[in-house]
């Protein structure tokens, strides 16, 4: 098992290397003159040259790359073009709301989607199953921001049960914090829930056809014991995989959800940086988000070894 884990860990390196090369060369090979575009429409030549110097575009590519990589490996993501603050500090300041939102969504989605997937498989081809599958199809079609506004319209504007937008830090009390995350996590989680519910259903259906399930039923075990202990446990590998892969959806969705609900997290930082064309921030965020995604996939890969001892690559 150690060999497997070590191999997985090393497999992360080329992926992150490609990500780093990608963001580096995107700036160098972007069509037109990125420095001029970043500086703005009526920037003077001096202003454009200043941006160019700041981005390091005035040096030979090899030298730029060496400096950039050296700093990156020391955890230095550069400085923002507009505020001159280090990108790492800007990211650290905005980390809490995004982490809270992502974890809340992960928790809410898994807690809702796995049970409905189990029920759908148990009641296969009955009404409950059709409702769940219908929800799954809708979940893949409804955009996060549209659902977000529908939720705000009903729960916040019409019925005034929950706040319209904003984020309450956890330091300000547990309930205001939780309350501010309910609608965002439902909106953000919709596609994710659809995905998890569907894979849970498929995986459960496959397991429920096995002989040992028939045996368990025949010897009179309670349905919930059969479903949860015998079936779900053996159906877990694909479900865990999809829970892990789906986090990518959440990371993409965070940018939009935070904008709708005015949550001051990494997503808002991204949007503000794009509108000001602050490339160092965008680049830093891509590296952080990609690293988070790769790290999660690594955790999933390692979890296989524990969930299914037969897996040895």
């Amino acid at each position: 098992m150690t060999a497997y884990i070590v191999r997985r860990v090393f497999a992360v390196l080329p992926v992150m290397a490609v990500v780093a090369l990608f963001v580096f060369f995107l700036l160098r090979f972007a069509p037109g003159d990125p420095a001029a575009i970043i500086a703005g429409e009526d920037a003077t030549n001096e202003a454009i040259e200043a941006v160019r110097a700041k981005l390091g575009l005035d040096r030979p590519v090899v030298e730029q790359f060496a400096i950039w990589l050296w700093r990156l490996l020391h955890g230095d993501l550069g400085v923002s073009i507009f505020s001159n603050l280090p990108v790492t500090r800007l990211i650290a300041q905005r980390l809490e709301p995004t982490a809270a939102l992502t974890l809340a969504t992960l928790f809410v989605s898994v807690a809702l989607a796995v049970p409905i997937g189990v029920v759908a498989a148990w009641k296969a081809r009955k009404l409950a199953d059709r409702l769940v599958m219908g929800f799954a199809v809708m979940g893949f079609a409804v955009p996060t921001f549209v659902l977000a506004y529908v939720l705000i319209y009903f729960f916040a504007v019409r019925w005034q049960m929950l706040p319209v937008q904003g984020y309450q830090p956890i330091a300000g009390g547990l309930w205001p914090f939780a309350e501010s995350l309910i609608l965002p996590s439902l909106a953000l989680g919709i596609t994710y829930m659809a995905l998890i519910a569907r894979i849970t259903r498929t995986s459960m259906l496959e397991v429920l056809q096995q002989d040992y399930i028939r045996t368990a039923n025949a010897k009179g075990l309670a349905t919930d014991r059969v479903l949860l202990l015998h079936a779900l446990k053996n159906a877990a590998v694909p479900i865990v995989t999809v829970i892990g892969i789906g986090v990518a959806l959440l990371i993409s969705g965070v940018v939009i959800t935070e904008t709708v609900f005015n949550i001051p997290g990494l997503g808002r930082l991204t949007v503000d940086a794009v509108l000001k064309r602050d490339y160092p921030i965008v680049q830093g965020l891509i590296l952080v988000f990609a690293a988070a995604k790769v790290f999660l996939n690594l955790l999933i890969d390692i979890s296989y070894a524990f969930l299914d001892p037969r897996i040895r690559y």
Partner: protein
Amino acid sequence: MVAVADDLPLPPRRFSLGTAIRRNPTVAFGATLLVILVALAVFGPLFVGDPLKIAPVNRLRPPSERWWFGTDQFGRDVFTRTIYGSRVSLIVGLSVAAFSSILGLTLGLACGYFRALDGFVMRIMDGVMAIPSILLAIALITLTRPGLGIVIVAIVIPEVPRVVRVVRAVVLSIRSQPYIESAIAGGTRNTKLLWRHVLPNTLAPLIVQSTYVCASAMLIEAGLSFLGAGVPPEVPSWGNIIAQGRTFFQIAPWSILIPGAFLATTVLAVNLLGDGLRDRLDPRLARRL
């Protein structure tokens, strides 16, 4: 089913629309919805007014007989704008699907068939896939001037690896088939082998995957426009209409909810078409999901 060779005798079958619909209700439903939406996008703008016409007197009017979908804060007709918006969504969806399929097919065939290329290209694909697609698109857009073309390019890049993976997997499984080995042994040239024997097998999964790419492209485009990083704000795309409706959402929710419903319906139609085609063309995949 894809005809692999044209000299295979096929039983003569008369096409009957009724049977086709009964056999594939989801394809029929998705296709019908799409035909309606495409017709609206192509012909709709001929019958509605100017989507950019500002009429401050009529601002924020609720849906009524005169303004079917109400008006926004500048008095622009939301119905007219929504009809025009369908053009942007469909153009983006179809072009991204087309370009990613062509690129993905080429790379996928190359990777699956020429093993020397495989490691290198697939590592790049893994890296691109590690970047959340909307962020990748955003990064490219930060560095260029806004426009429809750049939005399409920015969405194609993150979508290509998804196509490559599908095509490559098919090629790998086909490559070890006896008929390919015998073709190689018989001295068939690589180009002919790929074109005649490998390529046709990839088409069914490719078509299915390209419908999902199309749906995802429309969602990403709307998301980018919504964030202000998509097509220029004066273009009435669904994402832009929704973005501009944000300020007055509490008084005029229609300018967000109606284009949003159109977007969701279009994506739903494309997805249903994809699901139906998958069940029909790729039974192996259908059973897994």
